[in-house]
């Protein structure tokens, strides 16, 4: 499980890297220990700012030389002026937010573009587990049992695209992944992660 997870992280970081222009200014919401930001700094010479709630993760970010703010994403964006950042990243954090809409719209306000990555709840293994075994899905991208999951929202990639259409959010790029593999056929069925470059 751990190795599989690691590979997923690598693949999604690579996908996000491909979406980001060099030398841009990036805000990573829920940046964890700063692995993605450090990767972007190294490969694309971005300037980054992270926001993270876990104190120990803050120490890991600081050790990487990153600027990071200890705090809650749900309340962390209001002070930034419009279009402060070239990109705002919500990678694997969207589904854990209390106020998804507020944060997403604030991210679209403070960032010229927003990159959103989340586990696809309609991934076929999740469907099989629910349908045949009658159990809530536990997959590589949704690795938690019901009693320990930090995830508050469960959505499929189609749910997200519907939402963007409804709110007139432009979807500029879509990347579907399972492990390291890019999925192009029936992505809402075969991909366990979706990553979207969106703007308003």
């Amino acid at each position: 499980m751990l190795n599989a997870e690691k590979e997923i992280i690598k693949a999604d970081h690579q996908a996000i890297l491909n979406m980001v222009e060099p030398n841009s200014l990036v805000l990573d919401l829920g940046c964890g220990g700063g692995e993605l930001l450090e990767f972007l700094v190294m490969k694309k010479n971005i300037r980054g700012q992270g926001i993270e709630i876990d104190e120990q993760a803050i120490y890991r970010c600081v050790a990487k030389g990153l600027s990071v703010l200890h705090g809650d994403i749900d309340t962390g964006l209001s002070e930034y002026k419009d279009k402060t950042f070239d990109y705002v990243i919500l990678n694997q954090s969207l589904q854990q937010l209390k106020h998804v809409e507020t944060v997403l719209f604030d991210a679209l306000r403070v960032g010229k573009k927003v990159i959103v990555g989340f586990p696809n709840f309609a991934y076929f293994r999740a469907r099989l587990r629910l349908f045949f075994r009658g159990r809530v899905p536990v997959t590589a991208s949704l690795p938690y049992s019901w009693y320990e999951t930090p995830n508050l929202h469960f959505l499929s990639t189609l749910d997200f695209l519907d939402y963007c259409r409804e709110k007139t959010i432009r979807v500029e790029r879509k990347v579907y992944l399972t492990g390291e593999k890019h999925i192009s056929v029936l992505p809402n069925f075969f991909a366990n992660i979706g990553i979207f470059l969106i703007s308003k």
Partner: protein
Amino acid sequence: MIKSNLNRVETKYFTFASKPGEFVLESKERLSPVTIAYETYGTLNKDKSNAILILHALSGDAHAAGFHKGEDKPGWWDNMICLGRAFDTEKYFFICSNVLSGCRGSTGPSSINPKTDKPYALDFPIVSIGDMVSAQKALIDSFGIDKLLTVVGGSMGGMQALAWLIRYPESIRSAIPIATALRHSPQQIAFDEVGRQAIMADPNWRLGNYYEGNPPDKGLIIARMIGHITYMSDVSMAEKFGRQKKDNKQPFKFTADFEVEGYLRYRGDNFVKRFDANSYLYITKAMDNFDASEKKPFHESLSGKSLKVLVIAFKSDWLYPAYQSKEIVKACKYAGIETSYCEVDSTYGHDAFLLETQEETHLISHFLKGISKGRGKI
């Protein structure tokens, strides 16, 4: 505890504004001459780019690290200013000065007023945190240092760091305000006022003119006891003292029965040996009057500046609660300043900035490494 690696250190003195009326205070009053007591540690490099200014809190002084001759107690931040710690004496050059209006070698109410040849006492003008910083700037200039690598301090030291950001942003590359606030809340002012009233209610205080007689020790002891209560937390007090009773052979009805009582009295008794009651009045007033947004919103002072800021708060600090540090962070975000913020999980209360050296060392040492690289503007 790590022992200081510094050799014997000594306090030095810098005197400026020797012409009458040369140093103009925020209140428009004038002061001259001005002497600032300071210490230095480490070596200033050739291009004078490795200098760090250490800013002390209410009861601190210029003696931040190392040992004075004949003393076995090191400086107040010795566990931070040391080889391999937050402030590496091999890499950086440190200056720490006693604040203007202090009583540990810098000009203050206990200094001799050249006009009367007697201590100033209450003739000493009201001094602001900004005035303290201006005096520090004169000291820094005397070293020929253009830009400090950082200015750093906790509590009132943090206020001075904020005042540096406002007054001399071009002269610093970064600032580290720790456990501090953009301005005092009514609660903080209230605690300071009780301390001041305790001093002024002491019959020995005599409107500040006590230098030829007995000083108002009782009042100052009470002020210090109140201070100590606010510096600790419920948890840290319970851990340190519990309800432990002292052994009193001849109990008087109101002797110090509990450990905590004895501790507060002991700290108070020690404090009056090294602190001047009038300085306590002036310095606490300077803290209460401080408002980083007084002239213009703090974020406007920062706006467009190439600076980096590291803000540190502590969870159990109820005197300077983390929300006050977050206000500093908010202003930095609004101004587009590259900022890091950490709320360290500590049970020590406000004292944590002197005690949580491991976390501070981690945050600060990496932050200092990054300053030379970053552009500071987002």
